[in-house]
């Protein structure tokens, strides 16, 4: 099993080799962050936890922040073991606030990593394996660091206000606004803190898409259940009504599950066995034949088809 989170970008049409038109939905799926890997021993089942989209660290509750201990530790370790990357962050460290922010934005640096360098005092001579031993409890190392980050985030916002930089740019973000998991027994190839890209779908023909359908509020039976409705003229009052909902004395009640007016939409919908028309690893796009639930811009889960024939 393989799955990815993405955003529904919208629909268009493409042509195949024969020149036939294929209606497609474009799904924009930036690299998915692996927040955690669940294992049989620890959690009772095997699964990969995916994160998608950036979120301010202060928007999260502490229990949610706790999910990131292992992955962020791995990410810090991995990214900063690269000497060139570390040098960039070291360079940013010495700068004045507004200069530093500009530098970080221009070079596409990550603020969590930046503060990791500051907090753990990492320089060229630091042995990361010694600083973060692999048998240590990630929570022990990361908990105080994340508390530090949360404090910093408030401080940074204030400083941004003072120096007139847009607040959006200075936020400390974690790469998982939306967290979803998928089960798989082959967890050895997934490492918390890594990223999963659309290339993971290479060679897959059919996918399922899980999303949240557009909410339609309290809808009548015509819209919700495709009832025919009445004639609408010639003195009738039976226009958009449901009509009879059952017999009289026997059974003397309305049968369970009777289709009536009520809340429609805004529920989890899965569309199965859509053809994966093509993938674009460069632009992080998936092209899927046909429509998928939800408005444009909504987050959907794309997974390898579970029940493809």
């Amino acid at each position: 099993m393989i799955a990815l989170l993405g955003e529904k970008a919208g629909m268009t049409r493409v042509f195949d080799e024969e020149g036939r038109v294929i209606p497609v939905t474009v799904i924009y799926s930036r690299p998915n962050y692996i927040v955690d890997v669940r294992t049989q021993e620890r959690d009772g089942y095997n699964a990969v936890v995916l994160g998608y989209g950036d979120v301010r660290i202060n928007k999260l509750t502490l229990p949610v922040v706790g999910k990131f201990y292992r992955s962020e530790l791995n990410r810090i370790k991995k990214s900063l073991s690269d000497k060139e990357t570390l040098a960039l962050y070291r360079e940013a460290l010495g700068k004045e606030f507004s200069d530093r922010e500009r530098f970080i934005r221009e070079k596409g640096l990550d603020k969590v990593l930046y503060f990791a360098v500051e907090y753990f005092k990492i320089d060229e001579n630091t042995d990361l394996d010694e600083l973060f031993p692999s048998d240590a409890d990630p929570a022990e190392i990361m908990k105080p660091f994340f508390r530090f980050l949360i404090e910093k985030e408030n401080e940074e916002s204030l400083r941004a206000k003072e120096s007139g930089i847009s607040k959006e740019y200075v936020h400390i973000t974690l790469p998982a606004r939306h967290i979803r998991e998928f089960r798989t027994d082959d967890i050895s190839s997934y490492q918390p803190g890594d990223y999963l890209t659309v290339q993971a779908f290479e060679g897959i023909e059919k996918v399922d898409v899980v999303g949240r359908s557009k909410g339609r509020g309290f809808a009548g039976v015509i819209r919700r259940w495709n009832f025919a409705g009445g004639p609408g003229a010639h003195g009738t009052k039976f226009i958009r009504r449901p009509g009879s909902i059952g017999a009289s004395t026997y059974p003397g009640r309305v049968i369970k599950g009777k289709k009536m007016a009520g809340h429609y939409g805004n529920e989890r919908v899965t569309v199965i066995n859509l053809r994966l028309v093509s993938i674009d690893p460069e632009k992080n796009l998936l092209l899927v034949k046909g429509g998928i639930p939800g408005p444009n811009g909504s987050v959907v889960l794309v997974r390898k088809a579970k029940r493809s024939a």
Partner: protein
Amino acid sequence: MNKMELIRGVESRFIKEDIPEIKPGYTVRVHVKVKELRFNAKKRQWEERVRIQPFEGIVIRMKGSGINRTITVRRVSHGIGIERIFPVHSPNIEKIEVIKKVKPKRAVLSFIRNLSERALRRKLKEIRD
């Protein structure tokens, strides 16, 4: 990234740049690629062959924009009116030539179906440049 840009990016692979300006009322010749199987007597086997088939007629309606653009072309062949709808960006369309330009007064020219040749000439005045 902007969602519309992403979609334009997907479409750009198929969008043709060399399509002439077409308006309802114009007479066009659409060169359609037709795939057909032919029996090669020498090799004693069926062969696939792509042939170009021109379809000439009056554009009576245009629909959609960008990659979704289609044109409806009407021609009268042996006294029988034939209307075909072409997606102009389809790879099956080799090219589209504009044969005659007129000044369109309607966006949809359904009314020409009921006109005689003579009345049609009067309604659609040719413009020469």
